[in-house]
């Protein structure tokens, strides 16, 4: 019963995401004179929120269901973004400022003579797609394998995930790394021959983002819903007990950790397609921590909550920074404090609580009993 209830919630949220995205996309194709017309700016914003929702989903998968508080998931997001950005930069071809058909502008500017080896093949969309998944996936696998094998957990893991993304940020700021240094990758022109600045392309990307997000939600739901999901909860709440039952929680965690990194990476790729820039700032530890608060606000351990939290908090950020920019950090800080103190189950938990009081038959929420240490 619990499973079905949560499953319905995920389907409903995914459907809502699709409907809203479709409406916005259609609206953006109407002439500006039409009262239902949606500005391209709003379409881009919506696309950005959905990309962030992917990141939130990824964070929720590891934090909500296996108890790993990651403070470095933006690293996987950004790596996915960079992999996509490499392809988009190569697509510019000779239309760059320096008109070099082989080298991106920033390499010409650094007077590099040829592409570094790790850029080879980045002009093929399939290679790019593989890189989007393979690079963050490999990093997550290596990092996770080392960490979980030695039973690094709890806050220790949080601290080193943060150190990881910090180290990556420093590295990507370096011009010599070959990813555009400070400025990152930008000035993209088109993808698969579609002009990125055309409203039609943007509308299409928004629809694709919504579809990918909905798909990721359902896939995640399948992952956490079945017998494997029970094991996840068991690992989250009483890790050492699962060992004495003969399970290896490190393997379980590694599998989920890598899956989560892949979701984040796809989110990053979608982000770059729609926002049109990726730079080392995306690796900033603060970004990772912010993505955790999206999940906390929406409801840790509920997939709908992660998506709802990401969209709501980012919507709030957009509005706040437009009207009262100096107050945004107060707001965000207060959100962190208030959520942890007063809303440990997030908005979805609050909603269920209200539901339950109205209707006592509704089953309990699978709430985290505590933090797996």
């Amino acid at each position, binding site marked *: 019963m619990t499973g079905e209830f949560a499953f319905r919630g995920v389907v409903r949220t995914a459907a809502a995401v699709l409907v809203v995205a479709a409406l916005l996309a259609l609206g953006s194709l109407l002439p500006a004179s039409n009262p239902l017309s949606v500005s391209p700016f709003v379409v881009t914003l919506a696309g950005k929120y959905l990309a962030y929702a992917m990141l939130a989903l990824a964070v929720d998968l590891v934090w909500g269901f296996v108890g790993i508080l990651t403070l470095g998931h933006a690293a996987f997001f950004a790596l996915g973004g960079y992999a996509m950005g490499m392809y988009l930069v190569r697509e510019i071809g000779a239309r760059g400022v320096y008109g070099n058909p082989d080298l991106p502008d920033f390499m010409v500017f650094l007077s590099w003579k040829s592409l570094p080896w790790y850029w080879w093949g980045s002009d093929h969309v399939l290679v790019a797609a593989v890189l989007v998944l393979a690079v963050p996936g490999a990093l997550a696998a290596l990092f996770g394998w080392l960490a979980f094998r030695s039973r690094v957990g709890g806050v220790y893991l949080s601290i080193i995930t943060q150190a990881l993304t910090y180290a990556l940020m420093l590295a990507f700021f370096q011009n010599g790394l070959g990813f555009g240094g400070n400025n990152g990758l930008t000035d993209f022109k088109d993808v698969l021959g579609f002009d990125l600045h055309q409203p039609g392309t943007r509308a299409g990307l928004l629809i694709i983002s919504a579809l990918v997000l909905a798909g990721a939600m359902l896939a995640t739901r399948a992952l956490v819903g079945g*017998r494997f999901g029970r094991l996840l*909860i068991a690992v*989250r709440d*009483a890790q050492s007990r699962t*060992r*004495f039952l003969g399970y290896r929680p490190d393997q379980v965690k590694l*599998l989920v950790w890598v899956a989560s990194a892949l979701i984040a990476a796809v989110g990053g790729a979608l982000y770059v397609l729609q926002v049109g820039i990726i730079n080392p700032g995306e690796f900033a530890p603060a970004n990772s921590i912010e993505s955790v608060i999206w999940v906390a606000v929406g409801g840790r351990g509920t997939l709908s909550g992660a998506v709802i939290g990401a969209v709501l908090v980012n919507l709030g950020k957009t509005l706040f920074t437009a009207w009262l920019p100096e107050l945004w950090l107060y707001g965000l800080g207060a959100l962190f404090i208030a959520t942890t103190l007063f809303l440990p189950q997030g908005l979805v938990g609050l909603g269920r609580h209200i539901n339950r009081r109205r209707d006592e038959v509704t089953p309990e929420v699978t709430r985290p*009993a505590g933090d797996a240490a």
Partner: protein
Amino acid sequence: MSGEALLELRGVSVTFDGFRAINDLSLSLRQGEMRAIVGPNGAGKTTMMDIITGKTRPDTGVVRFAGHDLTKRDEAAIARLGIGRKFQKPTVFEALSVRDNLLLSLKGLRSPFALLLARETAEEAGRIDALLGITRLAPHARVQAGGLSHGQKQWLEIGMLLGQEPQLLLVDEPVAGMTDAETMATADLLRDINRTRSVVVVEHDMEFVRALGVGVTVLHEGSVLAEGALEAVSADPRVIDVYLGR
């Protein structure tokens, strides 16, 4: 002597920060035997369990179970060899239903990849129902384990242990915090289990040990002080000395 030793510890020592928790401990358990381990606080009972189940690695000594060297294996591998452990504080998966707790404990699938696609089979459902019957938890099958009473949690954990179908059960203070009736019922249950499996019980409660009616090993400062029938051991002046203080 019916058969050779199922579990054998020989010359086992472990030191924490200069403190010798286990000191040249030797202990042997026959196949099908039930043994009670008693001893004052700090005697090394829990550390001994940690060593057998792979949570703590001994500095020196031999730990063998059914021909396998346990010191080279981790907790999961030892559990898969057929050693089940019940903790002093009942540890069940509180966010999962009683049924799901038992499902996870069932002997069989352990690889995360296999679990990804696994569905509950009719055979598994039957085993779970049997365990629910043994532990008298059938009416609570769909309740979250966190909502059970203390005694029910103890029983659920024992049920999970049985689900593992271990050759050897290690049970750490199973009746702590139980009512008298529950205590006696637990003694019956353990005796019942002992018909098919070997059991090691760590316990403070002498009444309970008496009810079990099994051989007793007294631990003191990390090594065996006395061993034998309860009557003989409790008459041993050294044991009295340790229990009543110096």
